């Protein structure tokens, strides 16, 4: 198997692990952790394709990944702010009990 395929598989595995965490954990922060893992897996995908794709000197993949990191950081900040705000209201971070939108 080519190196690229190997990296892609790793990225897919990390993505799946992150998804599993986001889908199964009760704590809201751990869901965010899972999301961060998914983002990182995507970044890995991007860099891998940059490295083994055509024209790596165009830096497209690298730029994409850097910007992705920046956006992920911003998103993490906002998301955690939200979790804190929710915690202030409901005194818990249990996602299972947050079903006010049930309908």
């Amino acid at each position, binding site marked *: 198997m080519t190196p690229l395929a190997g990296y892609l*598989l790793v990225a897919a*595995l*990390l993505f799946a692990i992150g998804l599993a965490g986001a889908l199964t954990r009760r704590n809201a*922060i751990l869901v965010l952790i899972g999301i961060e893992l998914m983002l990182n897996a995507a970044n*890995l995908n991007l860099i891998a394709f940059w490295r083994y794709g055509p024209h790596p000197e165009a830096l497209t993949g690298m*730029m994409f990944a850097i*910007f992705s990191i920046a956006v992920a950081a911003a998103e993490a900040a*906002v998301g955690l*702010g939200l979790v804190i*705000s929710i915690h202030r209201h409901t005194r818990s971070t249990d996602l299972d009990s947050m079903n006010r939108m049930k309908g």
Partner: protein
Amino acid sequence: MSLAFYLIVALTVAGAVAAVTLRNTVHCALALSVAFAGIALLFLELDAQFAGFAQILIYIGAVAILIVFAIMLTRSSDTPATGVFSKSWLAGLAIAAAVFAVLGWAVLRTAPMLPHDSAAPVVTVQQIGAALMGRYVLPLEIVALLLTAALIGAVIVAMHEKAGAK
């Protein structure tokens, strides 16, 4: 696929698994940091040095700390009695496995078509800077704006309300 590759992958995967399965939330955050580090090493392996260091700086240095802060601020004195996993954790696991299966299937199907090996690119920071200031200046400015907005937004969201619950 050198030995270093497999070792780093093992580290990263272990860290990721630990991050989503540990009971103690702080331990999860720390494991996450290990995973981040592993990914950074993988970036270095892929000759994306800038991305790797940016990963370490930002993810491990800021995001992980941020997560720890958040954990601290939302800590309740007792661990939940009913467990850390949701009632239907098996469904979520199954779905994640399905996602991995699909992605893996896509990769393996196209594996023969993927380029086998290519020369390592040489990328200097100057090149990256020139690209940022040149071709990618618009996304740069937009990201700057985004970060500003996120900053302000996070502050507003997390701020104490005037007459609310204090």
